[in-house]
């Protein structure tokens, strides 16, 4: 039985599965249910200054993909709309009742030192394990100069992080917005400000759907729609890229990462951890199916770790980071060709039409006594993987390495590169 305990930025938890700051962590009621279900920690729904914000109704949009509901999810909610005092009282109670779980409190106040000092003092009184600075929320709050309006300006991130470190002893997590051209600017600022960990990603600016009858974006509020924050399974690839960029960056070497974005099961979590995350946070999947999903997350990760011989999270954390390189470090001599398992092929023709119309005309469609037959033309195949991805039969098309006896050569050293070393000599 693998040891799933995690410690990140000075905060400990029995497992790396935390609920992200969002509606699932808005109240004692929800958080207690989550802890009962087995979640290792929560980041409490973002607190702000009183009076609390007022939300609109109609708040969520969703993308369906081929029958899969909520493949992408979007919201226009603000931070908690409950009084600060109520939240603080509940946080204190929950921490007292659940001492072994991680309880981090998300915060967002105006970009001035005094409001931050005040709210940090109030949170410290709850005995919460840490705070997370919400520099990510891309809608509503950003129009008031908070959230991603701060997160998009590295100087502000550094400044606020430094204030927080000065005014509290609690660990400070800095939550980053993906609505930037490079995630490294904000990450470096968090490091420079003295942050104890970064959490990413927050949601992505988005319009999920347009109602073609009302001619307005969804979710619609009395005939109008605002841009919202995009999350759910669809954003996982974007989130993983940003996590990996930080994980391999020398300046960020020492800052732990709490990975967020489209995590729905243990495998997603394992991928984030393999790219360098020390814990993961989940929102959409819990909002889709309820807290019970953590059961399989814990069990599945543990079983997989056992099967791989990993005893602790640290045993594989970042294991894939070293294989995440720039394109220029890839082996230009490596060769693959597609291979079709004729016994498994169901003759849908998708590989043929994809390669024929949009790739390299490398799959021949013929008839053999009337029966359809699809065959890879090795000499034409460039090994792009397209057919493997379109084939609806698992493992029917595999990509087979060609034994070409060529050495590992990167583009910079390749004689075909006009700018390569050999060429210049």
């Amino acid at each position, binding site marked *: 039985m693998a040891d799933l305990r995690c410690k990140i930025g000075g905060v400990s938890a029995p497992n790396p599965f935390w609920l992200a700051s969002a509606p699932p962590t808005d109240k004692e009621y929800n958080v207690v249910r989550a802890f009962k279900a087995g979640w290792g920690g929560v980041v409490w729904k973002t607190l702000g200054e009183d009076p609390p914000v007022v939300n609109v109704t109609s708040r969520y949009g969703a993308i369906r993909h081929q029958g899969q509901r909520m493949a992408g999810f979007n919201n226009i909610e603000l931070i908690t709309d409950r009084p600060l005092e109520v939240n603080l009282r509940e946080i204190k109670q929950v921490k007292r009742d659940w001492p072994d779980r991680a309880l981090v409190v998300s915060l967002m106040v105006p970009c001035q030192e005094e409001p931050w000092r005040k709210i940090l003092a109030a949170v410290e009184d709850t005995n919460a394990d840490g705070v997370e600075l919400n520099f990510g929320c891309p809608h509503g709050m950003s129009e008031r100069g908070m959230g991603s309006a701060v997160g998009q300006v590295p100087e502000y991130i550094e400044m606020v992080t430094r204030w927080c470190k000065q005014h509290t002893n609690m660990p400070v997590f800095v939550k980053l917005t993906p609505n930037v051209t490079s995630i490294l600017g904000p990450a470096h600022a968090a490091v420079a400000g003295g942050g104890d960990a970064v959490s990413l990603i927050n949601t992505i600016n988005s319009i999920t759907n347009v109602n073609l009858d009302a001619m307005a974006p969804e979710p619609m509020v009395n005939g109008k729609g605002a841009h919202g924050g995009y999350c759910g399974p669809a954003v996982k690839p974007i989130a993983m890229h940003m996590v990996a960029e930080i994980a391999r960056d020398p300046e960020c070497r020492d800052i732990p990462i709490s990975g967020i974005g489209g995590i729905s099961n243990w495998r997603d979590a394992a991928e984030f951890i393999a790219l360098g995350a020390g814990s993961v946070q989940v929102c959409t999947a819990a909002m889709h199916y309820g807290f019970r999903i953590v059961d399989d997350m814990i069990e599945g990760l543990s079983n997989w770790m056992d099967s791989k011989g990993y005893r602790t999270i640290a045993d594989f954390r970042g294991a894939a980071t070293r294989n995440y390189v720039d394109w220029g470090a890839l082996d230009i001599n490596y060769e693959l060709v597609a291979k079709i398992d004729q016994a498994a092929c*169901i*003759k*849908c*023709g*998708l590989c*043929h039409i994809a390669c024929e119309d949009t790739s390299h005309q490398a799959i021949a*469609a013929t008839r053999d006594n009337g029966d*359809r037959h699809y065959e890879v033309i090795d000499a034409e195949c460039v090994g792009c993987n397209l057919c493997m991805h379109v084939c*609806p039969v698992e493992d029917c098309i595999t990509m087979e390495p060609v034994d070409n006896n060529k050495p590992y050569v990167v583009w910079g050293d390749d004689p075909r590169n006009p700018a390569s070393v050999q060429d210049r000599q």
Partner: protein
Amino acid sequence: MAHDTNHGDSGPDIAFGRLDPADYADNFADAKPPLDRPQALVEASRCHFCYDAPCVEACPTGIDIPAFIAKIASENLKGSALEILNANILGGMCARVCPTEILCEQACVRTAQENKPVKIGLLQRHATDWLFDAAIQPFSRAPASGKTVAVVGAGPAGLSCAHRLATLGHDVVVYEAREKNGGLNEYGIAAYKVPDDFAQRELDFILAVGGIEIRNGQQLGRDITLTKLRDRYDAVFLGVGLAAVRSLANEGAELAGVHPAVDYIATLRQSPDLATLPVGRNVVVIGGGNTAIDIAVQSKRLGAETVSLVYRRGPDHMSATGHEQEFAQINGVTIIHWAQPASLAGAPNGAAGNAAHVRSISFERTALGADGRLAGTGEQFTLAADMVFTAIGQVFLPDPLHADSASPIELQDGAIVVDDDRRTSLPDVFAGGDCVPGIDLTVQAVEDGKRAAIAIDRRLRGTA
């Protein structure tokens, strides 16, 4: 409460109203309920959108199945329905009656993949139902050609031909022997496949394009001859179906209570209130095709206590599909294989003293001999029978054509000989549906009518 139709004590037990009134509605409601929108979207998403899709090849009318399913998925239901109806104007009927398990769904790659084809028939119904419910008439006619074509028979073949000709700009006059149109769609298909008067709704949709005049009560060979039609019209299409049935030659075959299955089904289909339709307590069906299955299941659903379907060979020899056989068994029909009728025994029909009525039927067991031929084994058994239905084949009745020596048309093996264009031995006469060789299915009749119409159009425009 059952109502006997005869009042004797020793007579056959034939009665109507064997079921509670509500049960009739349940028993003859949609055997395969339609998909709702979410179900259709999930099912449509199962389609791989194959290239050179095997399902298309397996559809006799060649509907572009991946295209119409993709249009359901994108909620372009009008486009989807048109994709279907352009290839098969009776696409709504076919969605309900096609034995998809031996056609498109058998060929679907998901059958090979996981033995669970995409439910093409139900999706086809979803799209066409949408169009009918929206009361959209998507077809219009090309400019008038000035030509008129005679169509004989308003069954699927004739209607398909007439509709295509009308859209191509020709006028059409249909000669139909019966009072109602639709052919077996109206008189033959099992009631629970086409509830809510679907055959007539579809007929109205087809005729709404305009240019099609139907003359009912006009029988070829009785009211008009082929030669007259050829004189009067620019071309003729024959879609007369199979007008005769094979009957038993056994002792007792003439007894009252022995009916051709198709006759009883026609009565059932036209019955305004099934609670008034008499059915036997013990029913025996002879035959191995879909008609046998249909009569057996419908008898059972009318309240017959026992229904035995007896076929002279084994399950694999039956022309009813495995799916249909299973459907009969689920409905409480006992299928007995390897037995052929030997004789039927009757009794005087009670106090009324009518003609002797069947009471039982004896069968002889059969087996394949060493020479591979079917032979009786001599062993016999007897089944009680208040009604016996024969479903041992329908045949083409050539008399209407033979009566007319001025238009000799080539026949072979009891069918009208046609080429790929469905042209007969007479250059201006075309034929299709059950009266030509090939598989006897609604969808094939539709394809025949369509192909003939396209060939007739070429001929009338002098492009062929």
